[in-house]
């Protein structure tokens, strides 16, 4: 275990085997430090979503444990952003963002300042009365991010949030997400299968391999923040992408030959 910075949370020999016999994760060790922007990068089926769901507490691990650094009795809140915006289609943008607070018993009036501020931060001021189907895909994702952040969680978990968006929208959301992250200093665990996205955003990239899902390697992206459009065209960026891409290539070669585990 590292000294100095204490990890906010650590996965210790975590494994998950489903009732159908699929081992989604085997013996995963990973530490996430306060303020990290950590990407999980790997081929589809390597257990990235499973890892996020375990961290979120939506599942319990079969083996090992998820070790949170609990500061004197505070309850660890996580925000979750799914691949789809996953909004309530009948509710306005305001009501969608208010939802997590509402479930905690915060009234509309009490929630208003926090909701409006976040909507401004994700550039959706003026859209609070729109319903999701009146918004574009990128805007829906912004609502989803605002909703995840409205409870001021310590960790924001994102499961391929921008995979379904066009490149221009994705770049813009990448920039805005980084800005939010630097401003509000939460910790991010970001699942992606895009090398370029993971390098642009992250302070660390964890490369995973499949069958069984495991951590293959970790790459520190030692480039200064803030990162902007200039970073995307820099030599550094290209070099990091090259390295990450190589590691991902080896991870995919290391993938078990047989499609199904066990037997």
């Amino acid at each position, binding site marked *: 275990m590292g000294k100095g910075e204490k990890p906010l949370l650590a996965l210790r020999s975590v494994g998950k085997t489903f009732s159908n016999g699929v081992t989604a994760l085997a013996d995963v060790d990973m530490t996430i430090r306060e303020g990290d922007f950590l990407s999980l990068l790997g081929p589809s089926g390597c257990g990235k979503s499973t890892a996020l769901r375990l961290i979120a507490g939506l599942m319990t691990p079969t083996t090992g444990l998820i070790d949170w650094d609990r500061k004197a009795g505070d309850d660890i809140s996580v925000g979750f952003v799914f691949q789809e915006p996953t909004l*309530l*289609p009948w509710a306005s943008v305001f009501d969608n963002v208010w939802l997590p607070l509402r*479930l905690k018993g915060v009234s509309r009036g009490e929630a208003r300042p926090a909701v409006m501020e976040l909507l401004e931060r994700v550039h959706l001021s003026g859209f609070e009365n729109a319903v999701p189907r009146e918004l574009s895909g990128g805007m829906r994702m912004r609502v989803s991010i605002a909703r995840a952040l409205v409870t001021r969680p310590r960790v924001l978990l994102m499961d391929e949030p921008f995979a379904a968006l066009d490149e221009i929208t994705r770049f813009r959301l990448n920039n805005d997400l980084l800005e939010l992250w630097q401003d509000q200093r939460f910790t991010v665990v970001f699942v992606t299968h895009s090398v370029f996205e993971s390098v642009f955003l992250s302070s660390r990239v964890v490369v995973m391999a499949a069958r069984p899902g495991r951590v293959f390697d970790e790459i520190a992206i030692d480039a200064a923040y803030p990162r902007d459009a200039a970073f995307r065209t820099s030599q550094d960026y290209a070099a990091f992408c090259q390295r990450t891409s190589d590691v991902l290539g080896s991870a995919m070669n290391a993938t078990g030959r047989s499609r199904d585990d066990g037997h």
Partner: protein
Amino acid sequence: MTVTDTNSATQVLDPEEARRLRNEQLERIGSFVLPVAIMVLAIWLWDRICVWNEIPQYILPRPGVVLQTIHSDAALLFSSLLVTLKITFLSLLLAVIGGVGLAVLFAQSKWVEMSFFPFAIVLQVTPIVAIFPLINIYVDNQTAKLLLCSWIVAFFPVLSNTTLGLNSVDRNLRDLFKLNHASRWQELWHLRLPAAMPYFLGGLKIAGGLSLIGAVVAEFVAGASGQSSGLASRIIEAGYRLNAPRLFAALILVSLAGIVIFLVLSLIAHLILRRWHESALKQER
């Protein structure tokens, strides 16, 4: 053929778009005009057939005569209509309460649903006409009899649709609620009930028609045992007396009532869903 100019708008439309616009306009007009035209034609034919074949009034009255009868027997017919409508709406109301209530109960646990849903199906597939003699034995009150009968017919679509709706909530949304430590009640109120709304409203539209049918059928079967005063009794009565004009008049009122119920329920569904649900969106081609 060359289309040189499409006058109406200032912008220039190419021939294909112009044709499409014309077709759309025609379709919109046609969707109102055609049914009305066919209806008028049918009524005219009906009238002509009566005249040409010299069919006596007690077998097939002319449309004009039926209309006159609706007017002249208005007091009798409309008070009967009111009785039928009262049964219809009460049973629809009970069907909504019972159907949604049971669906919510089913949604609490798969075990409850597995245990009780088959009974609802049994109740649904057994012809109401066959159950009625039993109801007749056990229930004394005439209104209660009709209500029960009509309710049995109407509640199933509400129950089955609402159950389906409560169970078709997006998995991620459920996770989101779980993540925020939502109580069972909160999940029901803020997620499952609104998500079930389009399904429920679909069931309601079917139930509206069925509750009218149930009310009429029940009265028909009960008619033999007397003392009813709904539209079905008027129809039976008119049948015995070979009063075909009144029979037709009553029949027309029943179908009109059915159409109005359907339209009103469709309108309600549209108003509730128009902002968010696909079914209420205008088709864009």
